[in-house]
């Protein structure tokens, strides 16, 4: 892989990001009108409405607002929330790590276990284990995440109150340090489990299909003919050929899940990007929505770039140039 090819990929990613930044501005101006939303606010009289409009720069021409937005965004300043009046970057800084805890752990566990489950099913294709794992995976895959979460809550928080059903810490908790981390971990179990099961099932299904194809290839038959053990065939020939689609799905999912964790976060009252998004939508907090949209889009673009670059490592046949 040449440096030039890598630079080209990075440039393309940056160009996409620039487009997203511009689109972000016009999208939210097309779907909402912050000035009119203020007009029905019973807590602001007309003078206060006008002053607020001026303070937020909403009285300026659209292009002028766009210019301000671009220069602010370039400096990492997404403006202030209409609701909390805190800088959006602070709001994101509070919510993003919480979401990354969920997504990070769920993706890690699912990307380790999902392919294993898929491979185990493919290896025993047609047998009871394949049926059980495949049907189980398909069933999990097809379940709406919120429903799966509700089942887990019903079982492990209500019927048998083992895990907390929601929130990030016990209300009023004063724990710090390790005790706090333990408490957060305890509260993360059910949301992480929900997200993990959804992702795991998806990866298992993809891996099974991919591994099944690989196992039909001539090089596997040759491997058997020359006396390689099943383990050697799996490790040397099946897995390397079957993993590419899974890596693609994992990479793309990581970006999309940033936005897709909304239902999980809502269900478990987990204070992440999802919760921030829902509130911003409810309150028509356009600066926050713009920030969330930008973070999600950046996640997708970044993961696409990483997958692209990783491909050449995982499969020497793939050339970026």
């Amino acid at each position, binding site marked *: 892989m040449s440096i030039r090819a890598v630079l080209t990929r990075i440039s393309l990613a940056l160009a996409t990001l620039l487009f997203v930044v511009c689109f972000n501005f016009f999208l939210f101006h097309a779907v*909402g009108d912050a000035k009119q*939303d203020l007009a029905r606010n019973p807590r602001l009289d007309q003078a*206060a409405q006008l*002053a607020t409009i001026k303070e937020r720069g909403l009285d300026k021409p659209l292009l002028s607002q766009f210019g301000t937005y671009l220069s602010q965004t370039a400096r990492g300043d997404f403006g202030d929330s209409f609701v*909390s009046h805190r800088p959006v970057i602070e709001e994101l800084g509070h919510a993003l790590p919480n979401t990354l805890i969920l997504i990070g752990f769920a993706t890690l566990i699912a990307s380790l276990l999902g392919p294993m489950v898929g491979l185990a099913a493919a290896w025993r294709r047609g047998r009871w284990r394949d049926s059980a794992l495949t049907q189980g995976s398909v069933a999990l895959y097809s379940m709406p995440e919120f429903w799966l979460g509700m089942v887990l809550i019903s079982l492990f928080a209500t019927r048998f*109150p083992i895990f907390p059903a929601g*929130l990030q810490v016990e*209300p009023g908790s004063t724990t710090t340090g390790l005790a706090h981390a333990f408490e957060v971990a305890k509260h993360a179990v059910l949301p992480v489990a929900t997200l993990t099961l959804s992702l795991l099932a998806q990866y298992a299904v993809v891996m099974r299909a991919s591994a099944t194809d690989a196992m039909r290839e001539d090089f596997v038959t040759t491997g058997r003919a020359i006396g390689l053990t099943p383990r050697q065939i799996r490790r040397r020939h099946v897995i390397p050929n079957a993993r590419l689609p899974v890596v693609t799905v994992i990479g793309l999912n990581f970006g999309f899940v940033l936005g897709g964790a909304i239902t999980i976060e809502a269900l478990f009252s987990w204070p992440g990007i999802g919760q921030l998004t829902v509130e911003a939508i409810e309150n028509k907090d356009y600066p926050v929505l713009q920030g969330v949209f930008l973070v999600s889009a950046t996640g997708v673009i970044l993961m696409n770039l990483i997958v692209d670059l990783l491909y050449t490592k995982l499969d020497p046949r793939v050339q970026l140039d």
Partner: protein
Amino acid sequence: MLAAARLSLVPLLATVAALLALAILGAAPAAAQDGDLRIGYDQPIDSINPLGQQNQISYQVTTLGYDLLLNYATKDGSPDLATSPARSFTHSDDGLVWTYRLRPGLVWSDGRPMTSADVAFTYRTVVQNQTNVLRGYLQDVKRIETPDPLTVRITLERPNARMDSMNVAILPEHVFGKLPLKKRDTAAIKLPTVTTGPFMIQSYDPTGTTVLVPNPRFRGPKPAVKRILLIRYLDRQGELRDILLGKLDMVYSADARWLRKVRSEPKIKAWISTRPGFYEIAFNSCPSGGAGTCSGPSKGAHVKVVQDPAIRQALAWGIDRPDLARTAYGGTSEPAYGLISPYYTRYFEDLSKDPQVGYRYDPDKARAVLAAGGWNCRSVPCTKNGTTAEFELIVRSNDPEGQSAVKRIQAWAHDIGIKIDIAVMTETALNNRILATGSKPGSYAPSYDAFYWQWVGDVNSPDLNLEVLRTGSSWQDSFYSNPEYDRLARGSLRTLDFAKRVDLMHQAERVAQRDLPYIPTVFSGAVVLTRTDTWHNWQPSPTAGSGSPVTTNWQQFVGLRPGPAPTAAGGAASSGGGGGGTNTGTVVLLVLIALGVGGGVGLTVGRRRTSSAGFPDDWTEE
């Protein structure tokens, strides 16, 4: 990563086992700590700064800490001198000079004395800061003086009856005075808050738990509550679950659909109360020549239909409000026959029995009104001079109850000969229709026929409920304009004699009911859930009728006592309730782990056995 992976389910089972072990080691739900009052809520606390709050829950939080100059009485929201920082107030005969005398010895929670300077500072901030949400209360203020540390004198441009019921929290000058005037409504407040009321905010987390603790220097009786935990839920079902499990003591804003479920729960009490607002069908009332901020209705609007008095009155007679309250609103709302909710016990007048503007359900009368108005109703929709009695009724997409309500209204309207086309759209889209740009700068040309929405007024007086129909009001959305109404509504605000003020309000209300720019359908309701086994002595407000144990003042929390209410025999009702089952859960978990590990071993052994037996043949072509 995958290359190194072994074909085994052991890691999966090990992970599950580890998670379960984590649960057993310490994940059982914590029992409530002594003295904690745990309140679940779902609307975000948008700010803890009283100058910048938009949401009801935010106001509730600060009410527990900051005093108003004249706090509201639990009984009916009237000025309560017994609990207020002001021990007396008077006004000049012309109502232009108001003098408030403070109680001596008042101190902030940090030990600094509270004086008239703090009151003056707060009011000046409200007047001078351009964007705070409290400006409306002090719009007529000309001058604020403090002749001595215990006296505040306010001079007004015009008389204003709300000077005894200003919902303006008194702020400490030595804290807020350090902030620039422009930022005083949006700046973050240092914690713990400095207050004079019974509580102060110790920590604020809009996405988690906000904690209030008692103010050690509070002048009144010490509350039994040691901490108020305001716990934010994004999923409302979680609130129901947790109060049933005993992990919450109160759900601040419960869903009406839960009532059936909690009715059979002996340890849960549901408080159904009327809110200070109403749902309404708003008609495009903008006259063709324009009025106020309206330059004339948009050309596409069916104003010939919706501005016809017969259509409005017929529809008003044709809506079965009690049925609407019972069905669409699950029995939590009351039928509305006026603009002033029964929540305002001192202001409310039941117009339902009024023969002219009562509009109790009477479809025959509705048909007669249409006939008298020249509408031919031999077929549906009725017609008049080539115009059909048909219009569009917009309802918000985020208002499921409203959508249910308008479907019923559509059926009733059809029954009397009016065709309603329902359109569901977002608030933004509806606002675009209401505030469509007019022909003059800064004017509107509303492009809707009618919409279904609601207003929620202030805690203490229904002025806002009337203000929304006044010509030129910034909250106008029907663009109704009637000088008679304007005179009465404004007059009520300028009249200090309470009886006369209320009478003017009722007159204005009757004019609005006669002209019907709005058809009020129900007075909106609220549902609060409390547990009966953890705290008792809840005080509903208003006392008469259906009150809520929260929203009016801090007294409602100071009076709370731990445990269940004492029974007539002198003992306490049995406590306990939710939250149990941990031991059972642990046993079940151990069984699950045993099964899981057993299964894992079985699968692993099976794998090895197959491998050692030779090359599997089950991955050949099917």
